[in-house]
């Protein structure tokens, strides 16, 4: 039953819409019609609504909580406090970082807007009314808002619950407000390199506290079915299986009786990895009331209580020869984790993969020490559109390179080219313990330089600077370069786990008799277009058109176990699992084809969508034919059906990289920064869907713009959070956002089945230093070595003023 009119091989490849095709997204039909299904769209019969009473103080003892007036409001069902959770042992919950976090404040509050009581009411208006009526009496305590003061001798003890536990999850704690010290590399060796060097530069570089702020906030609907004992939890979960396991561990409900569903997610960017008090409270509330309970935070709650990112105070020292060869790197980080260590990092990496800080450079010796401390700020420390702490590391090294170049009086691009890891050095063993899989940095950098005509930009800048000095213009031109190397795709189970769960991922593919298919994954899309791209991987691997493949994620009852989507791990890990599951299918298909064609398996070869007899392509069986045969023929020695599952434990991480250039003009009298050009070259290995990659780069660059140019969550000295609404927290509109130019090189990952490396987070990692370097570069000739982010108008103007430039 071979087809009547044979079509060309090219045509067959095109029909698959497999790897490399700019296939349009299958998700878009429902989203453009307002038919998405996000968590707040879920309405179950009889559903109640929960809302939090939150702390007005950053550090205080709770003297009393008076619920009486609130309980009297018609429609209020119950109000939970820590006292209600204690008998269930749920007043604290484990964090992903080995700490515990108060679900509802237990005797003491540790940050402003901390959860104190959970009001359950018939609708959100009644809940909000009741929240206002809960009276909390406090005794104020002195807060710590400056991480540098957290370990002072006379610092108040923040975490009384663990004050006697001086052995933390990551080793000894040297102060009651200390969380961990994480050290990597060769301290003595680096110090020696610094002592022996011709040139040393040192700088304290702060990466301010920011927030991922996806457009949809976090929320859940918990539904306990008392009759069959099953708990269903719908929510904005970037890692639904991990949530199920954690929920089972802390509620003692057997894991098979818990179903976790991530519906459509309105952006995550790291915000939706953690476990939040709202999830626990909604679950308890549903268990107590026997009806479904919804909790959805508002924007202010989102910005002030769930998952901040960064807040790293980084001191870097680089040693180099006078010719500009780097001989050593030393860094120390003071990491402000807020009131609870709720970082979302693999267990053995309390500072994530910060030890990627040697970046793209061949640095012979390096040392990193990270001290984590508690302060009276919101807990978190998530990876905001980056692999764990990689963006912090990339920012530090890319600023330090510029500072070194300035000291050496050398062009920063030339300094980079001089120190890059060379193509022939891959796989490259870094001084801090990573094995970089593949790359060709020189080619990428040179391609970027040519695209932006780097020498011409520098010449233009020199002219503009002269014109500025002659008083002919009030603007300064800045050129920012960043060359980043990311480490993504966590990760190999031998060293990566979260709460003891190995960071593999999974895919299950089932071929239907008529030759269409369903694939299920352990990941969950939050806008990355998984339903589109993973189907493309399957299409290429098994020769069934992507259009004929349904992709499902996010329901733990049906999807195979996986660790979810964050840290750019979906493509490197689940993408690999998908390819491997496809290959298992193909292996069985080959046996079936051999039977049907009455030849030996070895006589067959795979060609796009079929097995054909070597040397006789006319004799073939398409995957569609094979699928049907697998269901309707008794084939000796083979089970019927055609399906496979693969759990993929990656042998290594992947190391995407890129060369970014930013050109901007600064008005020294107003501090207004005009980004005139931004060029981003990314190498993410094999490109599955170029349209989606480009979209990811645009989005990531816009987030980088936001971080570098304006985002910050600050606290005053009393611990009052500033910047807790979209009034103050900077999200660029279409007006401030420049036009993005994208470009690529392709060096596939050698250990990944299809060579893909992951891209979603690269633009954030590379974009932030490119913007910041450009602002610093604009003032470099006037003696500036470093000015802290965010580079908002006021700060930029301040910098100009300090340098005596503003009018």
């Amino acid at each position, binding site marked *: 039953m071979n087809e009547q009119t044979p079509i060309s091989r090219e045509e067959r490849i095109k029909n698959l819409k497999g790897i490399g095709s700019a296939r349009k997204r299958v*998700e878009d039909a429902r989203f453009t019609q307002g038919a998405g299904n996000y968590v*707040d769209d879920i309405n179950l019969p009889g559903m109640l609504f929960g809302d939090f009473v939150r702390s007005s103080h950053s550090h205080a003892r709770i003297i009393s909580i008076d619920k009486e007036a609130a309980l009297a409001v018609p429609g209020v069902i119950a109000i939970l406090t820590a006292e209600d959770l204690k008998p269930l042992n749920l007043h604290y919950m484990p964090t992903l970082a080995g700490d515990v976090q108060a679900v509802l404040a237990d005797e003491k509050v540790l940050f402003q807007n901390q959860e104190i009581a959970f009001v359950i009411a018939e609708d959100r208006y009644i809940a909000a009314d009741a929240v206002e009526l809960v009276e909390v009496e406090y005794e104020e305590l002195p807060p710590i808002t400056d991480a540098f003061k957290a370990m002072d001798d006379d610092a108040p003890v923040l975490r009384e619950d663990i004050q006697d536990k001086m052995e933390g999850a990551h080793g000894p704690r040297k102060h009651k407000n200390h969380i961990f010290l994480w050290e990597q590399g060769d301290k003595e060796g680096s110090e020696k390199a610094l002592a022996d060097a011709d040139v040393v530069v040192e700088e304290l570089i702060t990466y301010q506290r920011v927030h991922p702020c996806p457009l949809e906030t976090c929320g859940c609907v918990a539904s306990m079915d008392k009759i069959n004992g099953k708990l269903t939890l719908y929510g904005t979960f970037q890692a639904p299986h991990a949530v199920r396991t954690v929920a089972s561990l802390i509620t003692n409900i057997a894991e098979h009786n818990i179903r976790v569903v991530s519906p459509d997610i309105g952006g995550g960017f790291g915000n939706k990895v953690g476990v939040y008090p709202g999830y626990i409270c909604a679950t308890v509330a549903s268990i107590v009331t026997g009806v479904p309970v919804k909790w959805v935070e508002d924007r202010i709650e989102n910005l002030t209580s769930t998952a901040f990112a960064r807040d790293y105070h980084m001191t870097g020292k680089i040693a180099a020869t006078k010719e500009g060869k780097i001989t050593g790197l030393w860094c120390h980080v003071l990491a402000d984790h807020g009131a609870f260590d709720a970082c979302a990092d693999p267990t053995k990496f309390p500072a994530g993969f910060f030890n990627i800080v040697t970046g793209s450079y061949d640095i012979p010796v390096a040392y990193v020490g990270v001290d984590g401390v508690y302060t009276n700020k919101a807990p978190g420390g998530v990876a905001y559109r980056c692999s764990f702490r990689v963006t912090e590391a990339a920012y530090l090294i890319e600023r330090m390179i510029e500072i070194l170049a300035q000291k050496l009086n050398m062009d920063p691009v030339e300094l980079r080219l001089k120190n890059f890891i060379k193509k022939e050095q891959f796989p490259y063993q870094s001084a801090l313990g990573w094995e970089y899989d593949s790359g060709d940095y020189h080619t990428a950098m040179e391609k970027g330089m040519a695209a932006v005509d780097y020498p011409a930009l520098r010449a233009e800048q020199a002219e503009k600077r002269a014109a500025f000095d002659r008083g002919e213009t009030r603007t300064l031109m800045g050129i920012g370069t960043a060359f980043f190397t990311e480490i993504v795709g966590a990760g190999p189970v031998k060293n990566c786990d979260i709460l003891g769960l190995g960071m593999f991922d999974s895919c299950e593919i089932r071929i239907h008799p008529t030759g269409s298919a369903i694939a299920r994954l352990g990941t969950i899309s939050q806008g990355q277009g998984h339903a589109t791209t993973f189907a493309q991987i399957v299409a290429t691997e098994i020769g069934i058109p992507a259009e004929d493949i349904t992709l499902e994620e996010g329901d733990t009852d049906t999807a195979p176990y996986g660790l979810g989507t964050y840290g750019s791990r979906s493509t490197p890990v689940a993408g690999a699992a998908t390819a491997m599951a496809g290959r298992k299918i193909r292996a069985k298909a080959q046996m079936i084809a051999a039977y049907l064609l009455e030849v030996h398996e070895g006589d067959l070869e795979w060609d796009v969508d079929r097995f054909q007899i070597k040397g006789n392509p006319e004799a073939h069986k398409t995957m569609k034919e094979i699928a049907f045969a697998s269901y309707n023929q008794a084939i000796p020695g083979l089970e019927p059906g055609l399906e496979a599952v693969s759990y993929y434990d990656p042998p290594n991480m992947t190391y995407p990289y890129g060369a970014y250039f930013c050109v901007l003009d600064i008005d020294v009298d107003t501090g207004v920064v005009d980004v005139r050009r931004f060029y981003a070259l990314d190498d993410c290995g094999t490109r599955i869907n170029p349209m989606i990659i480009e979209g990811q780069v645009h989005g990531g*660059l816009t987030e980088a713009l936001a971080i570098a140019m304006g985002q910050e969550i600050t606290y005053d000295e009393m611990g009052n959070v500033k910047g807790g609404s979209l009034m103050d927290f900077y*999200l660029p*509109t279409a007006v401030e956002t420049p036009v993005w130019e994208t470009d690529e090189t392709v060096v596939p990952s050698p250990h990944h089945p299809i060579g893909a490396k992951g891209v979603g987070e690269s633009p954030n990692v590379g974009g932030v230093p490119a913007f910041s370097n450009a602002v610093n570069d604009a003032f470099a000739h006037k003696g500036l070595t470093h000015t802290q982010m965010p580079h908002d108008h006021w700060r930029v103007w301040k910098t100009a003023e300090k340098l005596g430039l503003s009018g």
Partner: protein
Amino acid sequence: MSKMNVKMTVNGKEIESLSEPRTLLIHFLREDHKLKGPHIGCDTGHCGACTVDLDGKSVKSCMTFVGQANGANVTTIEGIANPDGTLHVLQEAFKEHHGLQCGFCTPGMITRAYRLLQENPSPTEKEIRYGISGNLCRCTGYQNIVKAISMAAQTLNTQEAAE
């Protein structure tokens, strides 16, 4: 709390219900009338995810009490498609030019663009950027949204010229 009788035309259909006057239009649409297209991204008037068309103007429905919309003619994303059920040119253009990722801003964004193209049928890139500056998107970096709106404008103008 006492309730008031609210009447409005939503997506061409008359609806009527008893609501507390303080009910926000976004909750009235989403919860009382199951129109889940408009979303809540901030409830402080900054993000535009809740944008609906109210008497010919783009309005943030999280900033509008039902009382203020009493008697109004409201269009949400659910009412943007053509009467024959095919997608509106803007909806097609957003799909075609990858103008969305997570989709959370999309209903508000398209609803805003729908009004923008009536206010200014041939906007420049800059005018589009200003025209949608009340709508935030965290995923796309706007570039493909701007492109989608601009392509949709061209298509609509060509269609009109042909008619």
